[in-house]
């Protein structure tokens, strides 16, 4: 069983890798002596109760941004375009620079925010058009299209910023904040603008929920139903551009991508349904925004944008591990339970078949005798290809469940409960074997393995169905006889012959 081991490796590695980078950070900062004293209780309360005007504004802004990005990011993630935001946010830079130059040329200060945002949106839209063109007309795939647009547009943006820097010293420094963000310096009007955009985004997503849902999960079907796929995609893209542009100033260009990608990816671990996923994703976005703003207010000289992203990634790591729908631990537990159940059923079947093969078996009255016969550990070990360690563990578990009884001299037999369970298991196994033989035309010597895989997951309704199919030949509801010799080694000898097993079985 290599899979649980891999999971464990990953688990430990993730657990180590995540906090270690954070721990390292604090270690190093202490080496560098950058006095990071813990905030006082008083100050903590001040921040958490939103007593400061500045903190209130910043928190309001970052939370709205996280919420909007979480909602629209979900659509993007499900449309398998997680990195589209990356390319688009980089593509906004030349627009910002050009808008600045144009405004300065026309005698303005160049820092008029709506003008800069308009430029950003236009160049983002142009970047989107380029991506579409490359994808539609060349053999390059989406990844290359994104990479080309991202790097070339950003290069252009840097070149334009370079010009601006030499053109008007001092004035251009404001534009740098579009790359790295300046969350802590958010003004009330910025926060209001973010809130309006967030409301707008959420509203559009709410109004078009049904259409977007269809688009996210089955675009081809949506198209066949006559929905305008292209226009719906364009709406999602437009919303992404708007949210990105509005978030640029708050968290900066690169960390904006994180807000679009991380909360939805984390939400995916908690649910399989779209609406809860959007809610969770928006919640994670808003929570990261809140925590980021709080941290940067409490601890001096921490860039709030980066903190927001680190908080979001921490939530992601936790979701990856502990998510209830797709989390690693959850899946690991499921997997362990299943393999334990399978091993136990295999043990019961082996014990039953051993007792069935023994001479003392009488056809009419199986139960008391079967439970009386016992098998040695050695015999059980060669019944299947399992390791002694695993067999011992399985036996221990079965004994604790009172399905198997241990005797002296290392022999084991079924209890009454165990016998009932074993009969059910063996019946499923043989019903499936008979089904394969009669209805799938598989040689009796070959059915054992196929049945071995399926017997553990046959539900009651399926067993009923099988009984219905096979009832003509095997009217008894009890355990049907095995259609082949139990021991796989001797089974080869009678391959191709359907021979219900009689009392004595050949032993090698």
């Amino acid at each position, binding site marked *: 069983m290599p899979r649980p081991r891999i999971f464990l490796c990953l688990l430990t590695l993730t657990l180590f890798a995540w906090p270690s980078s954070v721990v390292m950070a604090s270690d190093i900062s202490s080496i560098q002596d950058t006095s990071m004293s813990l905030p006082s209780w008083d100050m903590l309360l001040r921040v958490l109760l939103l007593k400061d005007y500045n903190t209130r504004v910043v928190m309001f802004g970052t939370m709205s941004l996280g919420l909007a990005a979480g909602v629209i990011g979900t659509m993007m993630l499900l449309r398998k375009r997680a990195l589209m935001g990356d390319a688009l946010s980089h593509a906004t830079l030349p627009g910002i620079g050009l808008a600045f130059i144009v405004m300065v040329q026309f005698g303005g200060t160049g820092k008029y925010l709506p003008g800069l945002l308009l430029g950003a949106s236009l160049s983002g839209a142009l970047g989107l058009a380029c991506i579409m063109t490359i994808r539609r007309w060349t053999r390059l795939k989406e*990844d290359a299209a994104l990479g080309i647009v991202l790097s070339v547009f950003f290069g252009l943006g840097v070149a334009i910023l370079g010009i601006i820097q030499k053109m008007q010293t001092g004035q251009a420094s404001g534009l740098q904040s579009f790359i790295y963000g300046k969350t802590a310096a958010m003004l009330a009007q910025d926060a209001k603008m973010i809130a309006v955009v967030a409301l707008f985004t959420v509203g559009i997503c709410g109004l078009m929920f049904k259409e977007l849902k269809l688009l996210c999960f089955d675009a081809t079907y949506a198209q066949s139903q006559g929905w305008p796929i292209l226009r719906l995609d364009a709406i999602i893209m437009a919303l992404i551009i708007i949210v990105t542009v509005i978030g640029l100033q708050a968290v900066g260009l690169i960390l904006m991508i994180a807000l679009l990608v991380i909360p939805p990816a984390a939400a995916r671990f908690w649910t399989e349904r779209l609406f809860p996923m959007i809610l969770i994703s928006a919640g994670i976005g808003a929570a990261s925004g809140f925590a980021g703003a709080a941290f940067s207010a409490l601890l001096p000289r921490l860039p709030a944008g980066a903190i927001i992203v680190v908080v979001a990634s921490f939530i992601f790591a936790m979701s990856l591990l502990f998510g209830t729908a797709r989390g690693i631990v959850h899946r690991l537990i499921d997997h362990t339970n299943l393999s334990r159940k399978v091993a136990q059923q295999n043990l019961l079947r082996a014990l039953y078949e051993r007792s069935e093969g023994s001479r003392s078996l009488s056809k009419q009255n199986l139960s008391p005798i079967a439970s009386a016969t016992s098998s040695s550990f050695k015999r059980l070990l060669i019944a299947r290809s399992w390791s002694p360690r695993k067999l011992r563990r399985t036996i221990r578990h079965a004994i604790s469940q009172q399905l198997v009884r241990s005797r002296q001299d290392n022999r084991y037999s079924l209890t009454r409960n165990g016998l009932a369970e074993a009969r059910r298991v063996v019946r499923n196994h043989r019903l499936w074997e008979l089904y394969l033989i009669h209805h799938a035309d598989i040689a009796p010597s070959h059915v054992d393995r196929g049945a071995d895989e399926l017997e553990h997951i046959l539900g009651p309704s399926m067993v009923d169905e099988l009984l219905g199919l096979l009832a003509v030949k095997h009217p008894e509801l009890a355990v049907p006889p095995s259609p082949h010799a139990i021991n796989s080694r001797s089974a080869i000898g009678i391959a191709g012959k359907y021979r219900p097993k009689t009392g004595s079985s050949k032993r090698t």
Partner: protein
Amino acid sequence: MDWTSLDTWIVITGVLSAMSCALVGNFLVLRKMSMMGDAISHAVLPGLAIAFLISSSRGSITMFIGAAIAGLITALFTQWIHKFGKVEESAAMGVTFTALFAIGLILIVRGADKVDLDPGCVLYGAIELVPLDTITFLSLTLPRAVWILGSVMLINILFTLVLYKELRLTCFDPALATTLGINANVMHYVTMTLVAITTVASFESVGSILVIAMLIVPASAAHLLTNRYGLMLAMSMIFAAVSAVLGHISAITVPTWLGFADTSTAGMIAVVAGLLFTCTMFFAPHQGILSKVWHRLRLSLRIASEDILGKLYRLEESTSDQPTLAQSAVFPANKWISRLARADLARTRKITRENNTYRLTEQGRFLAMQLVRSHRLWETYVAKHFDLEVDHLHDSAERTEHYITQTMQQDMIEELSHVKTDPHGKKIPDQPSSEDSIVDPKQKGGQA
């Protein structure tokens, strides 16, 4: 423009880093992992920061190791999140690199008081300062960046040559590579290590934007120009070198035309590479947009012309007593392609036009008979073999008739034991032996 020895060194540095990036970029583009370059080049930031904070110096080796480890961690985490968390690969990448970038940013800001490590420097690099920092080795005094990038380029070239066959196989068919005993996973991480090393080496001098651009853009452009692996590698490196040279020249000239000062060389190299890519995208011989549009146009023109010929031929068949005429009204006159086709047919003397009336020439009739023969043979063939209703045959034949060759006609007529009429009861025109022997279909009909 005054060119100094400084400019020469800047260009040499740019060319070296662009070429090493372009070489490994080919593998990213071919394996559809271009965004990995973006992710790695952002995610090396914490590696750089930690290495710097540990060693408290800008010593190349520590920074180099730190960044290379961070790059590999990005590749590993992306792979793990994708595999164990069942997250889509691009999303896994987005989560990983933004998280690492944020951590790096925090580290830099926290340590920024005593450190001269500017995040802006990571993005744009400082290629303009390269010639000032020289190292003497083997009695050669060259800029440090030239030494580093030169060796990285050598490593990349050596690696590509040694693993030439293996890399090619894993790029184009990982499954086949695995069956042949090449571990695709190992190749993946080897490639990622190379990407990380190249990224880190190029960082200091040219910055991360240029790295991303050079990883993806030249390789993509080369991919549009050729189908051959070796040629693609070579062409991408040439593209990279050309963009580096032109990029620096335009960085110091282009802004002055508009009355500004010079600008960032790294940014302009990326822009030039983008322009080169755009040119390739439009003008590439087979993959280019113009060539594709041209081929589509040619094809639609041929189909439109053949449809016109077929229509005229059928009109000749149906009007028994009139001379073979056709009003232009019977054609979809508003479609420009149809008008173009008619003009083309008239020019090549396949039809004649007299006051809005069209008539087939001998040559045109020869082609038209071929076409109608294909059409009706196909209808007969489909009716015989596919059990379709008679009124469903026409559409299929209307599409297929343009692609049926002489040999296919011959095969079909033998398969159909020299049938004379199609399922609609219309006569299948005989194979005209040459253009001279064409006779008017009605005369022929009269003889039959």
